[in-house]
């Protein structure tokens, strides 16, 4: 069971919802793996202090050029084919801008002289550890590295065998979010009842609809804004999974890394319902799938 927590807008409470759901599941005796898929700004460890037991470098294959084998001025095969402007010829030698390279391997395929060998660029690290009864997977991109999707995929792969997975996704709607939510059984979108919150929720809904992923919405900081998000959900027929009441006390506790399900019974109750509803929906749709197969 793979549950992704996403939002469109940053700062709506994705990580808060994700860590508290993981704690509830673990307390109920479920084996849970938490995958922090926000590799640029991972924060789950703030709430779930983690002992990292294993750390591996995430590497992108990039080319290395053997200038002695290169045919020189008579050939431009790699220069002409690279679509990422990662190669230039300077002083007769092929030079690579490693940060521009996507690691597609076309230059190696195309080189008639076999002058292209393999090298790697470090994207960051992928790590695994534990926080109490919760297994943790996460990544940390290298400062200055623009590509994060291979790292996100590596984090998810490291959690791949667990029966219950909670994926905390990055904000936005671009390629890192696609990499993070793809393959989820259910996406919980966390929204706040503000103008920015509604606008970006709409984008996130379009995204999960395009990907064909089952989804529902948790409204966080309920009461701080207006009810435009509620009427939007109603109009669009989107499931409202729960409303987490906004309070200064909860904001303060979260700011310090506190787990709200431990100190705010009313928030615990909301999130227990959210977890039960989502798991029930996943089971129901898996059951439907099996029934369809049997027929």
């Amino acid at each position, binding site marked *: 069971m793979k549950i992704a927590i996403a939002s*469109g*807008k*940053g*700062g*709506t409470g994705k*990580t808060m919802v994700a860590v508290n759901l993981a704690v509830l599941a673990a307390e109920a005796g479920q084996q849970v793996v938490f995958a922090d898929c*926000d590799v*640029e*700004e991972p*924060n789950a460890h*703030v709430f779930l202090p983690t002992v990292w037991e294993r750390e591996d470098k995430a590497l992108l*294959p990039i080319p290395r050029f053997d200038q002695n084998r290169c045919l020189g001025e008579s050939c431009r095969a790699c220069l002409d*084919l690279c*679509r*990422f402007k990662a190669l230039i010829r300077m002083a007769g030698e092929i030079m690579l801008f490693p940060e521009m390279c*996507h*690691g*597609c*391997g*076309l230059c190696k*395929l*195309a080189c008639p002289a076999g002058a292209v060998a393999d090298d790697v660029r470090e994207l960051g690290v992928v790590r695994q550890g534990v926080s109490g009864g919760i297994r943790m997977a996460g990544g940390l*991109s290298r*400062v*200055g*590295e*623009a*590509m*994060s999707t291979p790292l996100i995929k590596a984090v998810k792969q490291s959690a791949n065998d667990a029966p219950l997975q909670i994926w905390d996704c*990055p*904000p*936005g*709607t*671009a*390629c*890192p*979010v*696609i990499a993070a939510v*793809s393959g989820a059984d259910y996406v919980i979108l966390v929204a*706040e009842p*503000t*103008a*920015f919150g509604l*606008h*970006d929720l709409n*984008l996130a809904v*379009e*995204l999960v609809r*395009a*990907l064909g992923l089952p989804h529902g919405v948790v409204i966080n900081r309920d009461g*701080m*804004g*207006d009810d435009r998000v509620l009427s939007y959900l109603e109009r669009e027929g989107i499931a409202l999974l729960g409303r987490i009441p906004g309070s*200064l006390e909860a*904001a*303060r506790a*979260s*700011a*310090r*890394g506190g787990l709200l399900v431990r100190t705010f019974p009313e928030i615990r109750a909301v999130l227990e319902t959210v977890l039960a509803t989502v798991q029930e929906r996943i089971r129901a749709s898996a059951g439907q799938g099996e029934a369809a197969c049997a027929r």
Partner: protein
Amino acid sequence: MREIVVLSGKGGTGKTSVTAALAVCAAKSELPGGPPVLADCDVDAADLHLVLAPAVLERHEFIGGDKAAIDAAVCQSCGLCREACRFGAIDEAFQVVEASCEGCGVCAYVCPAGAATLGPRMSGDWFLSETRAGIMVHAALRMGEENSGKLVSTVKKAARAEAERLGRDILLVDGSPGIGCPVIASLGGASTVLMVAEPTLSAVHDLKRVHALARHFGIPCAAILNKADLCPELTRELAAFCGESGIAVLGELPYDPAFVAAQLAGQSVAEYAPERYEGLFSEIWRRLAAS
């Protein structure tokens, strides 16, 4: 030309609210160089337009790169393209999975039948607009698209051209959360990073990564401490970090429901509660413009 880029690492700390308030106050100020040209570089979840209500003057399509297509009528299902594609972008039926395709051209290169071809990828739109706070360049990335970095660079380039045309000295750029592709693109040519910090453990962690990124590119930083009274001991920690790191703290803002109320009213907080915020943001702008 000077470029001030508003960043935070963590989302939701108040980048766009701060940018909007600064823009409105800067437009009224009589500092030399005139008001800044605005650029919303949070292209995959842009919100500045919700406050500044731009009237679009020009709309341009953005081609983010290429994407592959495989002609099923010509494809011989030999499997060479699937084997060579490093992005897992060709499915078992030999169709291109658009969300995974990076447009590298490997499939077209290896296809013996000429079934795989590359074509332009419409990845979004960008706009040149007029607002009550001056000229603004903004964009909308189509959902799930690649190349948000390239769209950010396109927005900045257009904003610079507009500033030159109007004889303006400063760009004010609203950035994305994170420290990846779009953020790195928004830092190209930046003269100052204005960090909007909030006193939460998550935001402190994330801000340090943004600061490391700015240092990586050699760009000086300034900071605004937002929601300062939410957690005073973390605000002190933030202030201490700024002090040690040579980051000028330009102002503190309270945790104030007026920020959300302003947003819902389609105003910047400097317009919604001018008695509290107009002077404050004007002074922050004066210090930024002089830095």
